[in-house]
Structure formats: C-alpha cells, structure tokens
C-alpha cells in the first residue's frame, strides 16, 4: 500500500534526496476542490503519477443518527446528505419507507414529486455548469449559473418554505399541496431558462478555452466506466444509455416522454454536454408535469397514523433514484418498530469521488485536477454521510 495514504512527518530538509517526484495536498481547503474534500497527489513535474482520495471532512454520522430518530423525523436529516441536490435524498428515503410499510402515495403527490425532482436536477446541473466553468477560469458562467439556479430556489421556497432543505417529501406523499399560481410562475421560469440556454451555449460550450481544456481531459471508455462503477451522466457520457428512470422506473416516470442523453468520448467535455442535454430534457418533463398537475385533483398524502406513534412492520427495501449525480439508493431495514434499524445511503459520489477520480487523475496534469473532479460532479458529503 502506498505511503501516500499516510500523513508524513515533516522531513529534515537536509535529509531529502534530490528528486523530481513530490507530493501535493490538494484540499481540503482549496478553491479547486469540490466541497470539503482532499486529494493527495504524487507528481513528477506537473504529471500525476498517483492520486489518493481522502474523505471524512464532512462526516456527520447520518446513518447512525437515523437509527435513533422516528421514521418521520429522518425527513429533516436526509436532504442534508447532498446540498446541491437534496430532493432525491428525501424522495428515495420516503420511498424506501413506503416500500416497507406497503404505502402508495396518491397520484397527485407522485406528480408533485417528479416536479420537485426534475427542478432539483436543473438546479444541480446549473450549479455544476458554474463550478465547472470556474475551473477553467470562466467566472461569468459561474455567476450566470448560480443566478439562474437561485430563481428556481425561489420556486422551492414558495412550495416548501425552504430553499435547500425542503423537508417536503414525506413517507406517504408530500407535506402540503402546491400554492396557487406556482405552476404559472414555474412555467414562466422555464421560458426564461430556455431563453438563456443559447447564451450558456455561447459562453461555455462554444468557447475555445472550454473545448481545448475539456476535450480528452479525464476520459474513460464505456468498459472502464462500467467496471469502475460510474453511473448517471458520467456513464452516459461514455455512450451508455443507462438511466434508472427508464430501467428501474419509479413514481410516474413511465408516463413521461423524455430522451436519455448520451455522448461519446467519456471526457470532461462529454460529461458537461450530457448535463446540458439533461437540463433540456428536464424542462421537457416539467412541461408535461405542469398541465397534468393543473387538471389532476386529489389528496397529496395517504392516511397515516400519528407520526410520533407509528410502528412499521419488520422488513427491508432498496429504493433507487436517478439523481443529478447518478445512482442514489437507500437500503432501509426495519426490525418492526418506531424507527429504522439500519439505513445505508449509497450515493453516486461514493464511486465518482473515490475510485473513478483516482483512476482519472493518474496520468493527468496538475492543472486538470479541479476540472476532472467538477466534471464528475462529485458531491463529497454524499461520500462521507
């Protein structure tokens, strides 16, 4: 095992042999690192000969805490596992509880959940556009992406009362129905996003700096991506049309018309092109969801007992979701009682921020570390949990 995994003692400068090989600690505080995360890289010149991912800076023990909380209380915890894309956390946990309890959310609640999920996907991808652009020195795009995302957070705030940690999707449905007029405002915002997309295109994707820096950077073949456990946009950027919404469908996704966006090349550019295409597809899905929600009436929660005295039967469930990062899954176990016996969170970044990242960094140049990490859209809190 490499000694790069151990934090070394400070060496005596006189005892160091001359060498062109040196170690660099990339993070946990570094503008080119995503979140609180660290990568230790061994370099020869500016070429990486070994990379070791180092997590744990955001470990908050969610899985342990969830064993102490009531089934319903955990809804307040789960969105915090991934800040940029919190809705899939709520939805996947709630669905795993529903699978154990034999609950089916009312149809209107399922459509609302899809609205929340796809809006969250747009937000997450806009955020990533911004972060990715910044890694190649394009800060305008970052401001534009974050600004556009903020307008969608206004919609979340209107629906749920919160911008990030919505605590809105609960086992059995959603916490409350949509406020009057929000569908009109979301529709207008989608128009605005579509108006701005060509500007993003010109600023980012038709930009010589982006094309030159991202083409061929951090590339992997489809075989490698599958072997390393890549999922979501990172896998689809290698030409593999894999999407849990289509392959292992949930909610009302089978009723929705959308394309699975793929690209060839498997490099940083292809990964961002997939995300751009997915924003377009999410808008397309939302344009189907909005009219359906206008005509569909009914409850948004199925009847539940008092959440403070709610025992679930013994059982287990493995719920999977296609989040903006890739495959998200909750393995939830009940021993029959008021709280989970075990909850295991499988985040897509568990693969992308560790093994996939280590593979892609080996042989890369130091200036591409940030871009490779951001192009994988790795979310460190999802790894640490």
């Amino acid at each position, binding site marked *: 095992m490499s000694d790069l995994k151990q934090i070394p003692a400070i060496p005596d400068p006189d005892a160091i042999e001359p060498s062109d090989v040196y170690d660099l600690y990339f993070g946990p505080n570094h503008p080119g690192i995503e979140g609180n995360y660290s990568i230790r890289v061994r370099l020869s010149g500016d070429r990486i000969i070994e990379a070791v991912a180092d997590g*744990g800076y955001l470990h908050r*023990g969610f899985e342990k805490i969830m064993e*102490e909380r009531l089934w319903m209380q955990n809804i307040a915890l789960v969105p915090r596992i991934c800040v940029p894309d919190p809705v899939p956390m709520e939805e996947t946990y709630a669905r795993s509880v529903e699978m154990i309890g034999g609950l089916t959310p009312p149809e209107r609640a399922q459509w609302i959940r899809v609205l929340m999920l796809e809006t969250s996907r747009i937000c997450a991808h806009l955020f990533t556009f911004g972060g990715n652009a910044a890694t190649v020195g394009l800060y305008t795009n970052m401001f534009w992406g974050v600004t556009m995302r903020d307008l969608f957070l206004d919609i979340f705030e209107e629906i749920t009362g919160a911008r990030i940690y919505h605590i809105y999707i609960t086992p059995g449905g959603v916490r409350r129905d949509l406020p009057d007029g929000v569908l009109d405002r979301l529709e207008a915002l989608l128009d605005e996003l579509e108006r701005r997309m060509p500007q993003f295109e010109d600023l980012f994707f038709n930009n010589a700096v982006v094309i030159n820096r991202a083409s061929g950077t951090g590339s992997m073949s489809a075989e490698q991506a*599958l072997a390393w*456990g890549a999922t979501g946009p990172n896998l689809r950027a290698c030409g593999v049309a894999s999407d849990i919404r289509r392959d*292992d469908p949930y909610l009302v996704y089978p009723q929705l018309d959308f394309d699975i966006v793929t690209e060839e090349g498997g490099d940083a550019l292809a990964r961002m092109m997939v995300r751009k295409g997915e924003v377009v597809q999410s808008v397309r899905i939302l344009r189907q969801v909005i009219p359906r929600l206008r005509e569909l009436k009914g409850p948004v929660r199925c009847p539940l007992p008092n959440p403070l005295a709610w025992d679930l039967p013994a059982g287990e*469930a493995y719920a999977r979701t296609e989040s903006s990062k890739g495959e998200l899954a909750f*393995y939830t176990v009940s021993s029959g009682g008021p709280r989970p016996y*075990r909850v295991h969170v499988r985040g897509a970044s568990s693969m992308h921020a560790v093994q996939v990242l280590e593979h892609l960094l080996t042989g890369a140049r130091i200036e591409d570390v940030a871009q490779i990490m951001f192009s994988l859209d790795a979310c460190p809190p999802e790894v640490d949990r």
Partner: protein
Amino acid sequence: MTIPAPLDEVLGELPLVAARLTAPRRVRVDARPENLPALLELLKGRLGFFHLSAISCVDWLEEGQFELVYHVWSDKLKLLLSAHVRIPREPGEYVSIYDLHEPAGFFERDIHEMFGVVFDGALSLDRFILTSWDGPPPMRKDFDARKYAEETFSTVNYHPDWLKDIEAAGGGLEE
C-alpha cells in the same frame, strides 16, 4: 410475481437457503457464506449482473451476526438482486469480492471502518472517513453514540460576564 426462469435456473445450481421476489424488480436471495462469491460470479457471467450497486452491512447484535447484503443489478433482466449472507459477529471476517466487482473496494473499506468486518483480499482496509478515530467501529449496535458524546464533550451554559453586567443593570435576555 415469479422469479424469471433464467435466474431460477442459475439459483438452482447452488444450495441456497431461499430466493423470493419482494417487490417489482427486486429479488432477495439468502445464501450461505461459502456460496456467495460463486453466486455473484454466476450472476455476472450468465445473467448480466455487472453492476454492483452497493454492499450493505447490518449488525444483528442479539443474534451475534453481521448481515452482508450485496445489491447487484442486471441490465439484461432489469432486476435488482440482493444477496444476503450472515457471518458470525466475532471474529467478523469474510472474503472480498473486489476481483469480481471493483466498486466493492469502496464498500468493503467503508464496512470495515464502520463495523470492523475484515475482508480477506480487499483493495484497502485503511481508514478513509474516520482518520483520527481511536474508538470502536461506531456503526456497531453496541456503540452508544449518545453516551460517547456526553462523556467526551462538555456543554456550555452560555452566561458571559458582559451579560451579567447587563442583567445587573436591569436588562438581559428575554425569556
């Protein structure tokens, strides 16, 4: 709901405890620990279970066992199979499947760190998340997180001197 015939055929080749559909596209298999690697290899080779979605660990303290659950997905069958094995909690040792599924490297390291299970042949069992932790594996059921926190961290009664001065002058925090 019935188990697809090709899967039923493969499962029949190993002396398994039980296999059943638990939900649409979800199969639960209870295997003997000595059969699990062969089972996963058969599933991968014959039925396209290429994707290791996760390995989960559950600590059944009263039974003195760890339950390891291997979740694998087949794109060919559109099916998620969860293969369960139970191993004795002491000494808590099992074999790695890293040679078969590379993503196992992360999950085995995580389970070792959080539950103390040792996987023979694992990619790495080095600390990843709990780098400076010197306590017992914290996800074990006999580790009391609340007790640990109460014993390790002190609580602060927030009543600074400047506030006492304000209170003496008739002001203070509103209750």
